């Protein structure tokens, strides 16, 4: 696209790379399965089982995978609508993992994750966060760091709620059927004092206009709109909070094809205008290819491959990614593609297979695959794959 001056381009992209907006570090979310009279926990659904990735400012990361692989759970845990089982969620260079815990739990978290290590004499920082917090620890002591991390939790929570917003999948359930659009849109900003009540009409009207809905419709109820329009209203609701990151969980999946492209284009236009960052969750690889700059592929609660969009689609290295791509029907009867039909179903996340989670279905599995779990490693520059034999399919 912009190959006129490659050096400028590179420095630009490297600079961009520096600005990590969101970093998820080994995120784990298990759901308990309870049974019996005493509701005892009999097993765990390993919905998200050690997921790490980064989102840079201004980009769109596509999170893709089949149903049940944990995409929504990642989104909900990120938003802290679920509490993570373990792992860290780092937003704008601050650990936010403990924000929504009660104070004593938050303190315990900070002690466990940072203080216990910092107090060790031969402590070595492993990332920037360590470096930053260790600095505070050295200068202001344990109390100082605790104050920095768990002081003003209420305020931090509010800021977090402004910075990260979500657009949901279901246009029918995502808007309160008994509220007028005006109130649906103004509720958040008013609660955060982003604008005054007297400005509400004006601001809501402008937001509606921006997503292509006539401002006079703000007095209507959700059921008076079509699916596509409701999705636009959902987007306006997120926009009005001036978020840094918008998570879109299958935001267009429920829409008709002709409406889908309207909403996708709208989201891309808004991104340019407001310099938004998206985490775009979808099961649809074609859509992910169109909208994202980087892609994270999940399978059974784990990231199997992540790379820049171009690299991923030109050369998928994980056998699952490759099979997924070949399974996407292409609307071109002349298009010849490698047909890889995976056998069997996705295993249950309650009892994932030993070794590589994909080995029961992997066409190129070798004996080691059922023994050792492959770690996510950088196989090519910025191209991470969790497979013992990347590129072998």
């Amino acid at each position: 696209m912009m190959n006129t001056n490659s050096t400028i381009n590179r420095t630009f992209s490297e600079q961009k790379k520096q600005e990590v907006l969101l970093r998820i570090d080994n995120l784990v979310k298990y759901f308990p399965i309870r049974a019996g009279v005493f509701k005892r926990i009999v097993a765990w659904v390993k919905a998200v089982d050690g997921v790490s990735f980064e989102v840079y400012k201004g980009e769109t990361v596509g999170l893709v995978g089949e149903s049940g692989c944990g995409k929504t759970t990642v989104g909900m845990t990120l938003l802290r609508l679920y509490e993570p089982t373990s792992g860290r969620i780092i937003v704008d260079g601050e650990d936010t993992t403990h924000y929504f815990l009660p104070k004593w739990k938050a303190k315990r978290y900070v002690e466990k994750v940072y203080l216990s290590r910092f107090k060790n004499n031969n402590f070595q920082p492993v990332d920037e966060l360590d470096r930053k917090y260790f600095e505070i620890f050295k200068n202001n002591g344990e109390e100082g760091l605790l104050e920095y991390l768990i002081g003003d939790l209420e305020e931090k929570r509010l800021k977090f709620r402004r910075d990260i917003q979500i657009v949901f999948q279901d246009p029918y359930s995502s808007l309160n059927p008994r509220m007028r659009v005006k109130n649906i849109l103004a509720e958040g900003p008013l609660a955060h004092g982003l604008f005054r009540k007297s400005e509400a009409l004006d601001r809501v009207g402008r937001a509606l206009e921006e997503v292509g809905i006539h401002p006079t419709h703000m007095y209507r109820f959700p059921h008076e709109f079509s699916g596509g329009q409701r999705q636009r209203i959902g987007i306006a609701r997120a926009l009005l909070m001036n978020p840094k990151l918008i998570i879109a969980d299958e935001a267009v999946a429920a829409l008709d094809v002709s409406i889908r492209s309207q909403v996708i284009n709208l989201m891309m236009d808004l991104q340019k205008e407001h310099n938004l960052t998206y985490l775009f969750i979808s099961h649809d690889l074609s859509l992910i290819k169109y909208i994202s700059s980087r892609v994270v592929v999940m399978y059974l609660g784990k990231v199997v491959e992540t790379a820049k969009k171009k690299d991923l689609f030109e050369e998928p290295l994980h056998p699952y990614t490759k099979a997924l791509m070949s399974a996407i029907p292409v609307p071109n009867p002349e298009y010849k593609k490698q047909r890889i039909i995976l056998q069997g179903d996705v295993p249950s996340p309650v009892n994932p297979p030993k070794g590589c989670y994909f080995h029961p279905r992997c066409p190129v599995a070798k004996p080691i695959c059922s023994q050792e779990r492959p770690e996510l490693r950088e196989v090519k520059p910025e191209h991470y794959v969790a497979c013992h034999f990347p590129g072998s399919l």
Partner: protein
Amino acid sequence: MSEPKPRSEFRRMMRKLLRNPSAILGFSLLAFFVLVAIFAPYIAEPVNPQMLDENGKPMRLDNPYIMPVITWSSEPIPPSKEHPFGMIQGRDIFYGVVWGTRTAFYIGLTVTLISTAVGIVIGSISGYYGGWIDEILMRITDVFLSIPFLLAAMVLTTILGNGLDKVMIAMVVFGWMGAARLIRANILQVKEEQFVLAAKALGIKDFFIILRHILPNTIFPVLIQASMRMGSLVITAAGLSFLGLGAPLGYADWGSMLNFTRNWILGTSGSSMTYWYAVFYPGMAMVLFVLAWNLVGDALRDVFDPRLK
């Protein structure tokens, strides 16, 4: 962009109501009872014709709810021009039925409002917060549900003493569980709806989430249930009165009036229908009252969902 036709919600609802004959019947009956209750002093003047005041007019009653004794014959007297519903225990049945309407509304509204409110609070907390709070509240609810109501009411009135207000307290204390369970079940469902998650993601406080997002979407079934209960509550109260636990003797209450008939209910030997009017009019009032609320509840159920087109 073309737009869907805005439909007037209210007009749609009215149209739907007017097309449903049983709804019309329900609302008409209810309106009739309301009118009777409002205009009771004009329909059945609260005076005692046996006693005259200084102007020679029949004396006004201090408490219109205590039916005046106007004849000393305790045997039921059949309907006549003066006393269109007949008399029993020396009291005018017509007077009792008319003023009993007020009592019915009083009992029904008070008990329903308070017990539903209690149920909503308990059920909302239980459903929204879940976990151990839910566990505790629901076990308490189960305990209350497991106690037979009549027994509990009898025990409670023995402790508190007889009287209409005591009966009403008993009905509230043992009457909130249905609403609590219903609203909890609804909340569990609505809680997972995406608009509630969206509100959480916006950082809205729990109290407002419950108030603005959850209750408006869960409360209608409860209100409908409540309106259906209005009728049956009056029957329950009547039952208690019949057992002599409720309203005092001679109180203008349909149940107490039936209590009078206890001795006459079988009629005279050979003709069991002799005193039919003593049972018929208060009983009929009760049946129609229950019917009215049931039909209204049904009609509301049909109409009150904006999602049901």
